[in-house]
């Protein structure tokens, strides 16, 4: 049996992001160690679905978050994150996941983690995409 469409999307994104030389995790819940940074995690956080035909085809809208974490300094972190955003946006526009019919960037947020008491500064960027795909009734692994 093949994978659920959400896993297919995460795996395809991981492959694309690894192609950019980014250490990418598609199933990461454990904390990231400093030696693992910079790192990217791909998360499918939410999904809404609706039946679109009499035979039960489901339209799935899946929120995909690509979270980039860097260690750096307060002077250059924004620049580093923006540089990565440029590469990621271009790569995903050129090669959206095959498991989607529509893959659009909905929002990007930048966050400087002011780890006041810690030894480092971290920059975190979340790029949220909406992936639209269709699956047959009762079969979340097959793309229509």
């Amino acid at each position, binding site marked *: 049996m093949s994978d659920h469409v959400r896993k297919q999307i995460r795996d395809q994104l991981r492959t694309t992001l690894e192609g950019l030389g980014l250490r990418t995790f598609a199933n990461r*819940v454990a904390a990231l*160690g400093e030696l693992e*940074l910079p790192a990217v995690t791909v998360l499918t956080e939410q999904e809404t679905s609706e039946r679109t035909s009499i035979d039960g085809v489901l339209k799935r809208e899946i929120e995909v978050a690509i979270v980039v*974490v860097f260690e750096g300094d307060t002077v250059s972190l924004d620049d580093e994150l923006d540089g990565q955003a440029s590469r990621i946006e271009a790569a995903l526009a050129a090669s959206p996941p095959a498991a989607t019919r529509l893959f659009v960037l909905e929002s990007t947020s930048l966050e400087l*983690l002011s780890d006041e008491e*810690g*030894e480092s500064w971290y920059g975190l960027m979340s790029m949220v995409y909406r992936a639209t795909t269709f699956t047959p009734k009762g079969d979340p692994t097959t793309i229509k």
Partner: protein
Amino acid sequence: MVDFAGAAEAVVDIFGEDVVYESSDGRFTIPAVFRSEAHRVQGSRGPAITSKRPELTILQSAMRAEPVEGDRVTVRSALYTVASVRQDAEATRYLLGLKRV
């Protein structure tokens, strides 16, 4: 009467090590107690990051001038910058929060 200064000196004597402190007054070696506990940083999305919280305790009597943010200190061959300065209630020690350079 409690001898806070004597107690602080004893702690630095027992647990301390030599560090190199750099400020506008120059570069000098002083004894200090270094601690670096693990802690977590959590962003709004994704997994947490494990980090460290390095702190240095130094005797006020060992300092030529009051430490300030931006001073530098080398501990165990690693260079840090002073990110925060606190004084204990008895005015015997400085507690310095450090950031790695």
